[in-house]
């Protein structure tokens, strides 16, 4: 009876939510109130795929969903991004019969790293994909090792793990268990064994604390690692990224004897890993390689990470990053620095937290702003409430002072950009701050 009431509540809630045009995790919240064990009582589909990690969860889930749907499967997934247990409950109960049987063929869950242990204490995923673990919103999540400890509880009951072989911390999830599938990246031209980031989270072996060595690194601590002390080392990948061609926007995935070339909408190594993770998950769920490759041809992310705009007679792109996540900034900086044309770069840090002003800005010092010393970056403008501390951070980058301007007001920053001869602009900021800039420009 409780089960029935819980399902009914979730369905009514979801219906009401749709009427007012709001997707939220409230229906799941009420259902869990009515029956805290409801998730354990639902008949789940044969494939329950969970995806977690610091970065790339949403795009990986979007890709897996598209591939599986293209293959004719009915996929239920949390597209609204409500990735905590209430959101997952809303999804599951919304997609099941009143008798408690899910109508889909696949349940695909983007899971918050910290809450996976609660969600998966009620049911087991058949496949658990972990994309990566690195410094992301330390105020909310804690450092990567802390996140690892929390996520471990959620991961351990999964039947099969699909892990990033190049991430030493992620690889540790496979310790003491079987049935792990690995994805990783082959050595790329120019990839080096040393870290070229501001900080190095791959310095010490996560298993024994010994000093690690890398044959090559793809980015930060992600690469072909090995610990000479305890012999903990990268596993040979079952799914491997061959050549990543950033200029042409394509990559090659090798799986056993097969090899597939796949185009990338917004080429970056980070995006390449997400595509690889999605490929591995879909292949493990039984979709043939050619079908996956074909599905990914037409894939366009719904996330709108890149927004094109015009500002006067200047043209630009806003590269959405994430405050308190240095890797996402590094990713955007790499795009601006690699542009063959001369560019201006605007960095906005206005509100780090959406709820209140916070003085936690230590992550400025984790971002590789030094890369903006690239000669094609003619002007750098720093703006938003935190412009002062950003300016101090930039004063240590070695970038000539005359290239840098710092103003609090985003309007003033836009005026400055308009006054420069450099016609191409990159704006780097968080999704939470981006509208403050986009409201001042013409979106294209």
């Amino acid at each position, binding site marked *: 009876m409780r089960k029935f009431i819980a399902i009914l509540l979730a369905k009514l809630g979801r219906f009401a939510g749709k009427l007012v045009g709001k997707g939220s995790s409230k229906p799941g919240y009420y259902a869990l109130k009515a029956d805290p064990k409801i998730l354990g009582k639902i008949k789940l589909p044969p494939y329950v795929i969970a995806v977690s990690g610091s970065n790339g969860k949403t795009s990986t889930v979007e890709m897996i969903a598209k591939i599986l749907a293209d293959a004719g499967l009915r996929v239920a997934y949390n597209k609204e991004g409500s990735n905590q247990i209430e959101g997952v409950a809303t999804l599951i109960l919304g997609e099941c019969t009143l008798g408690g049987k899910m109508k889909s063929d696949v349940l695909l869950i983007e899971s918050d790293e910290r809450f996976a242990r609660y969600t998966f204490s009620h049911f087991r995923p058949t496949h658990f994909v972990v994309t990566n673990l690195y410094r992301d919103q*330390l*105020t*909310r999540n*804690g*450092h990567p*090792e*802390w996140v690892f400890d929390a996520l471990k509880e959620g991961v351990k009951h999964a039947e099969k793990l699909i892990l990033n072989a190049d991430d030493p911390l992620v690889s540790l999830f496979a310790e003491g268990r079987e049935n792990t599938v690995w994805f990783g990246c082959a050595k790329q031209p120019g990839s080096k064994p040393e870290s070229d980031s501001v*900080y*190095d989270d791959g*310095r*010490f072996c996560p298993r024994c*604390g010994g000093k690690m060595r890398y044959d090559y690194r793809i980015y930060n601590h992600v690469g072909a690692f090995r610990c000479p002390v305890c012999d903990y080392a990268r596993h040979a990948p079952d799914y491997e990224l061959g050549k990543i061609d950033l200029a042409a926007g394509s990559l090659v995935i090798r799986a056993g004897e097969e090899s597939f070339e796949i185009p990338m909408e917004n080429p970056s190594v980070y995006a390449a890993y997400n595509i690889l993770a999605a490929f591995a998950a879909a292949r493990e769920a039984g979709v043939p390689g050619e079908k996956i490759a074909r599905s990914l041809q037409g894939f366009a992310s719904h996330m709108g990470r890149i927004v094109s705009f015009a500002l006067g007679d200047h043209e630009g792109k806003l590269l959405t990053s994430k405050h308190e996540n240095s890797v996402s900034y590094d990713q955007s900086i790499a795009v601006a620095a690699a542009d063959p044309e001369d560019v201006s770069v605007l960095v906005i840090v206005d509100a780090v937290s959406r709820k*209140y*002003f*916070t*003085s*936690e*800005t*230590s*992550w*400025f*010092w*984790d971002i590789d702003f030094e890369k903006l010393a690239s000669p094609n970056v003619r002007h750098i403008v720093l703006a938003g*409430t*935190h*412009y*002062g*501390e950003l*300016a*101090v*951070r930039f*004063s*240590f980058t070695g970038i000539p002072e005359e290239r840098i301007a*710092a103003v*609090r007001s985003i309007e003033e920053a836009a005026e400055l950009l308009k006054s420069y001869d450099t016609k191409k602009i990159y704006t780097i900021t968080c999704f939470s701050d981006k509208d403050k800039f986009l409201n001042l420009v013409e979106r294209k």
Partner: protein
Amino acid sequence: MIRLYHLYPDLMDLYGDYANLLILSRALSRAGYENEIVKRSLIDRFDLSDAGFVYIGSGRESSQKRAMEHLCRNRETFLDAFRRGVPILLTGNAMEMIGKSVTGKDGVRREGLGLASFETDEGEKRLVSDEIVTRNGEKLVGFINKASEIKGVDRPLFHVEFGLGNAGEEKEEGYTEKNLFATHLIGPVLVKNPAFLLEMTSLAAKAPVDAGKIRDRYADEAFRITLEELSKRAETETKSNI
């Protein structure tokens, strides 16, 4: 030549801690003092006899245990620098290492340096807060992100106006004795607080340094805005508690 020792920069590096030494080194240079940053960690020979300043930042709980064990093996070297009055700054959970013990969330109690008599207990929850603290009537701003509580501090460094203290809602934060300054505030504390930077610069220089020489208008502006914004929050959040 003033030698600024950064201990365990590879282990205790979680919150852009290195920025404290960059800004201190620059301030000393601007004030006319030649200086260099010297990095020392687990595998290095440990000698602080020529130290003009010592700094340790925050790390993962596991890294802190490794650094602490190493520091304890070099106890006399560190204590000697402390007794000689070498300025020492510890931020984040580096502070915990100088106490009597740190008990991990695994329940294991590990010996600390024993320079101070306080004890640390780690827990399952992270305690996170913005901070406004005062020292000699001057305000400082910062942030705490820790998984522990420290009990038995008899010489606090700061009075807490807004945020967390050494344990829970306690109004006292940090530890100070002679020229040692320990606080659980994380990251670039000296970047965020120009007045504290001036104090540390003068201590490292062993002479009062002229504030005008090391002034950075952007750092001043960042401090002003941060204090203003946090004070607004402090006011509304106190009101909502009544």
